[in-house]
């Protein structure tokens, strides 16, 4: 057997109905590798409902509960209560929802689950729009992106509002663990999944999940684009354990965001001024993240 840097076990089957080059499909495969077979996953209405379960098939070798789009947080609180009542031990309870089902429609249930201190892992796979229904903008769609509901014209340059800061919202609930993960960095991804699995209490994983048809790039470029997202600072990788933030991938200097933006059709209408505005915001956010990390390091435990 070859020497592997991530677990060999495969808990996601082939034959599922994700698009070619699907970021969320790879994210689920990597997630289950780190979690192992004693896992129950609650999936709300999202691309993954369709990917996993054309009747009577299932793409996952773990238990799956299909639920309504707004209910993921509540459903994993219920699954944990049921597991406790049945005396099931060493079971990972996982919610796996999209950005629309988390940052918009499921926000109340997520907040409730975090506030109840449910012992479960909530995963938001972020493809930055309602992709399953045909690329409608969500709260997690970034500023300037084209979607079918933020069309581009001479006067409108894609989505006029910035991306919702879901990590900020989650961190305000002081979870046991929160991290950003990117399938383009499988070893970092796996370490975070295994760290989350070992902890107790509410845990949150924000997964970067490129969507070739929705973001308009060739299906072979999913990983290359994922690397660019992190190396330009658009999607920095970090984790927060007990309120202490640590950046897990540090680059000597950030690459220009134009490399990331110009690789996608959804940003092709952006002007040089638009890109400069995005670059300034990314730089500010990155500096803020670094200063937060320094502060947390200096804090007396």
């Amino acid at each position, binding site marked *: 057997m070859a020497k592997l840097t991530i677990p060999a076990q495969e808990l996601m089957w082939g034959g599922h109905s994700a698009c070619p080059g699907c970021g969320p*499909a790879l994210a689920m495969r990597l997630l289950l590798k780190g979690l192992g077979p004693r896992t129950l996953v609650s999936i709300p209405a999202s691309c993954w409902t369709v990917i996993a379960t054309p009747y009577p098939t299932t793409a996952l070798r773990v238990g799956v509960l299909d639920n309504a789009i707004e209910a993921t947080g509540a459903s994993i609180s219920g699954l944990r209560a049921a597991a406790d009542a049945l005396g099931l031990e060493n079971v990972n309870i996982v919610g796996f929802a999209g950005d629309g089902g988390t940052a918009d429609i499921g926000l109340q249930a997520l907040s409730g689950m975090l506030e109840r201190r449910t012992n479960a892992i909530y995963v938001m796979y972020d493809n930055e729009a309602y992709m399953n229904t045909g690329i409608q903008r969500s709260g997690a769609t970034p500023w300037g992106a084209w979607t079918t509901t933020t069309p581009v014209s001479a006067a409108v340059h894609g989505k006029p509002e910035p991306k919702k800061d879901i990590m900020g919202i989650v961190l305000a609930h002081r979870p046991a663990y929160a991290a950003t993960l990117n399938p383009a960095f499988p070893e970092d991804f796996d370490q975070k999944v295994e760290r989350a699995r070992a902890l107790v209490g509410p845990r949150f994983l924000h997964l970067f999940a490129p969507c070739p048809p929705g973001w308009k790039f060739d299906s072979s470029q999913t990983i290359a684009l994922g690397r660019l997202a992190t190396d330009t600072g658009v999607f920095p990788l970090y984790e927060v354990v007990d309120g202490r933030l640590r950046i897990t991938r540090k680059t000597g200097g950030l690459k220009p965001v134009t490399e990331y933006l110009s690789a996608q059709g959804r940003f092709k209408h952006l002007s040089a001024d638009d890109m400069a505005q995005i670059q300034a915001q990314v730089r500010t956010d990155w500096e803020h993240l670094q200063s937060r990390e320094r502060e947390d390091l200096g804090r007396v435990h």
Partner: protein
Amino acid sequence: MIEIRFHGRGGQGAVVASELLAQAAFLDGKQPQSFPFFGVERRGAPVTAYTRVDERPVGLRTSITAPDAVVVFDPGLLASESVTDGLRSNGLLLVNTPRPPESLAAPPGVRRAAVDATRIALSHHLGTPMLPIVNTAVLGALARATGVVSLESLRRAVEQFVPARPEENRRAASDGYSEVRAVEGTGSATVSGPKARPPAPRLPEGPIASVSSETIHTSAWRTFTPVIHLDRCTKCNFCWKFCPDAAIEFDANGYPVLRLAYCKGCGICAAECPPKTIEMVAGA
């Protein structure tokens, strides 16, 4: 009334083709109707669309179960979908394939036509090499093989309604028109149908869905197929790590092995392989 059923894969333009055909028929002074089957639309997944053309307004609102012509955008669909279901015995089967029409299996009496629309689309840079958009070339072939619309109206419909590259698409339609080949039906052809799905478990005794998704093969979704040249493979496992379809495993010596039944041809393995030992080869 002429009824035409389109079988394509998400992203090839089958739904747009059904609409363009209707627009062309309208320009010919006919009363057309077109609509897609409402299902799971995924890039690469099988999709179905319908067009009816008549001299009078069409009152029917049902999907087409006894078509006069069946148009298949990808030969891979012939094995996995029952594309000729209900096809009239004097009807036409048109397939996008580089192979001759004589090689197509069809029910007795059915005329067979073939056009290499993928090559035509690529020659006009329509779509990407991974997903050529073949619809206008196929429509040109359909216009010639059935006479359901005139080439002139088709070219005008393409000019007015195709969102990108109207000139290249018009040329593709003309190429399809001139390159299509048709042969009469035979009396003794056999048709391959879809593999039977496993029976569903009875409710409510167990989990609702307990059959592995690996009973579903997605190889027909591919336009290009990866080929690994093992002589240069360094066993770095990048192809395995990054496969979203769990379509790569290892042999006893630690070399990657493709599980082609589940590969959708996304090309990530070829793009990420550090020594570039993986080649994407045209065809499923």
